[in-house]
Structure formats: C-alpha cells, structure tokens
C-alpha cells in the first residue's frame, strides 16, 4: 500500500508519508514529530499512534524499539467538558 494512504494518526489525519518526509528532513525524535505534525495531540492523545510512530522511528534510525522515547503522557486521560470540571470544583468548595 502507498505510504500516502496509510493513516498513522487518525485524530489529525497524518499519513506514514508525512512522517517519513519529516524524518528525511532530520526530525527524528517523537517529540519533534509531535510538535510539527500534531500527532498525539488529538482527542486520543497518542493512544492509537504512539506505538506506531515509535516503531517507525526505530526502523528509520535502526535502533531498538525501547531506545526510542515516546511522547510524554499529559493529563487528561480522557476529554472532560470544562463545565463539568467547574461543577465538580464548585461542589468541593
């Protein structure tokens, strides 16, 4: 299958080709790829693409998978409405 048709990040519509293009330009850390392509920044927060990107970087750099650092995991683990957080906060105080 063509790399252009292989979606790696479904939240932001990023293809395998996009990732390879950037790696060819020298952006080979997962954090840099994230910042330029927004992979891992969508509603799933990298749960889908995180490992795929890690694998691609490891193949590209020819290093072991465990040597490729993945994204820093950031809160929240699931999207919560601001209204709900506000109400929760009001109940506590």
């Amino acid at each position, binding site marked *: 299958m063509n790399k252009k048709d292989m979606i790696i990040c479904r939240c932001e519509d990023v293809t395998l080709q996009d990732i390879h293009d950037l790696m060819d330009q020298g952006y080979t850390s997962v954090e*840099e790829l994230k*910042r*330029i392509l*927004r992979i891992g920044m969508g*509603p799933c927060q990298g749960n889908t693409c995180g490992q795929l990107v890690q694998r691609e970087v490891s193949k590209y750099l020819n290093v072991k998978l465990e040597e490729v650092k993945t994204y820093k995991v950031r809160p*929240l683990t699931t*999207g919560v409405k*601001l209204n709900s*957080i506000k109400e929760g*906060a009001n109940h506590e105080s």
Partner: protein
Amino acid sequence: MKANYVIVGAGISGCSIAYNLAVKGIKDIVVLDKSYLTSGSTGRCGAGIRQQWGTKMNCLLAKGSIEFFEEAKETLGYDGDIEFKQEGYLIISANEEEDEQFEKNVFLQQSLGIPSRKITKDEAKKIVPHLNTDVIVGATFCPTDGHLNPFKMTDAYFQAAQRLGVKFYFNEEVKDIVVKNRKIKKVISTNLEIKTRNVINAAGGYAKEIGDMAGVDIPVYAENHEILVTEPVEKIQGPMVMSFAKNLYCQQVPHGSFIMGRSNPDVLHNHSNESTWQFLDEMSKTVCEILPVVGNLRVVRQWGGSYTMSPDRQPIIGGTEDLKGFYLACGFSGHGFMFAPMTGILLSQIILKQKTMIDISDLQLNRFKNKQVFTYEKSVV
C-alpha cells in the same frame, strides 16, 4: 572545535538571534540545546502576539516584531505554514480602576502608532458574541494583534539559520563556561568542548544558571505557568480574549482548538513544568464565567512551562559590563515569543556594534544594579 559565537538555547530567542547574526554575514555560529528544538518555554507557550502594553518599551518591541511576523514566511523563505492569524486581542476591563488604566494604555499605544482603541461593552459583544458582558466594564481592542504556531515559527528561523551556515547541536547540555581574566575561553557541553570568545545566553528558564557558569549574576527566576487545550471545533472566536483582573487568556487557534491559561499567584520559583488539578478547577471556573459557551468543550490536554521573570517584567537584551563577549536575551517574563523578532534584530545590532533600531538602554542588565524597587509592567497574565 572552535566557534565565533556560541548560542545557548534553541528556543525562539536563540533561533532568532542565530538567524539575525548569520544574515548579517557572521560565520561559525553554533547553537547548543540540551534537548530538542522548542523543548523549552517556546514549545509550551500560548503563542499570542499583542501590542497592547502598558510600557513604551514593551509596545515598541511588540510592534516591531509584528511587522516582522507579517512578512516572516517570505523573509525566512519557509515552505511550511506558520499559521499566522491576525484577528486581534480583546482585552476586557473588569473594574473601574482597570478601565481607567486601559484608557492611559491606549493613549500610549496610539502615540506609538499602534492601532488599538478603547471600546464599549456593546462593541466588545459584536467582536466576540459569546462574551459575557455582565462581568465587564469595557474593553480595548487592537485588530493587528494575533497568534502564530510556535513550533512552525521557530522551525522557520531554525531552517533559515541552518541554510546560512549556523550549526545546531541538540541533546548538548552546556555544563560550564570557562572564563579567565574576565574573558571567555571555552564552552563545555555534554559531548563538546568549544573554544570561543562569545557566548549568548538564550537559555530561557535556565538563564540564571548559565549566567552563574560565567560568573555573571542575572536576577531572573523561573516559575511554572499552566495552560490547556480543548478539542477542535468550528471557528467561533476571532480574537484572543484576555483579562488581567479575572486572570485569563483564551484563544481559538486556526486548527480549531481553544487554548487558555491563567496564573497562579502562589506559584513557587523553580523549574517545575507540572500540571495540577487546581489549575484545571480555577481555569474552568474563570472561562465558564467570561466565555460561557466554551464550557461545552472537552479539555484534551494540559501542560506547564516556565515564565522567566525579571524584576521589572521586561526582558534583558544586551551585553554585560563585567564579562566581555557575554550577551543576554532572557527574563521575558511570559512574553518572549512575541518579542523574538526584535530580540534577534536588537541583539545582533548590539553584538556588531551597530546603531540599534530603538533605544534599549532600559533593557540592559545594569538597570538592576543597586535598585530594590521597580515600577513594572502590569499588563500581564
């Protein structure tokens, strides 16, 4: 290894300085960063750009920088999209005292050629229809303020600087600056030893530590500021909405998500970048009061980053009296992204002993000597 200039830090400041020196023909410039491009405050910031300031210096730095941003894509020859959006900042006043201060600020801004204006509640409501005008007194608006993608903007400087021959080294932490007889001899980092006479400190939250390595005391400190982003939605808000009294800034970026932040008055002075539930609680209360519909959006991520505070909340851009060849671009106090074009232009002019574009005696390190009390910029969140 040898270098003419060693720049510490590949945030927007370091990249802008590198580009500006290189474009003036300087060779052998090396930039060292202990992590990856934009790993410091730059990659964590709100990336808003505004000219509505309360001090003349900040107004001029912002105005000059916006003029650069307007042409940045072409000037830097960048292929990507810097996502520049110029739909203004709406700054709301929440009490009479603030409203009076804004009157003065707008007077100052207009005298410097900034197209800001004082507006009524009703006019504000026309600009941002979902604004809760019950809690505001008035507002000011400047249509040429805006926002850019901080990664892309830094990348644009980075790529242009590289094309001009600047060498960047990542994952290279500066560990020591060797000084003898008040002259810089070399910079020692994780894997490199670089002989040089000139070091430019653009280390953001770590500017004080870099100063200490060279024996130059820089009165700045880092404090954590938190921020969050929501899921993307269709466009409903043009300008950034900001309030100092209510402690809020909130903008919908071109990608569709809303980013918003506020300050914690009790924050400690350290390098923490942590995320807290207290921020989430306070942020949601504030934004739901001022922009109620935004309350329907889901938060997808929160993070933190450093503001590097100087005693008068204005940057330090210039050389140092005690150590020849040691230059500073730090202490941006939470607004160094929007000043970065001017930071690079001005510092390169100082380094090359050219006449500076504006008088920047007020930005020199020596302004803090023997001074305890400062009047400072109050227009900050």
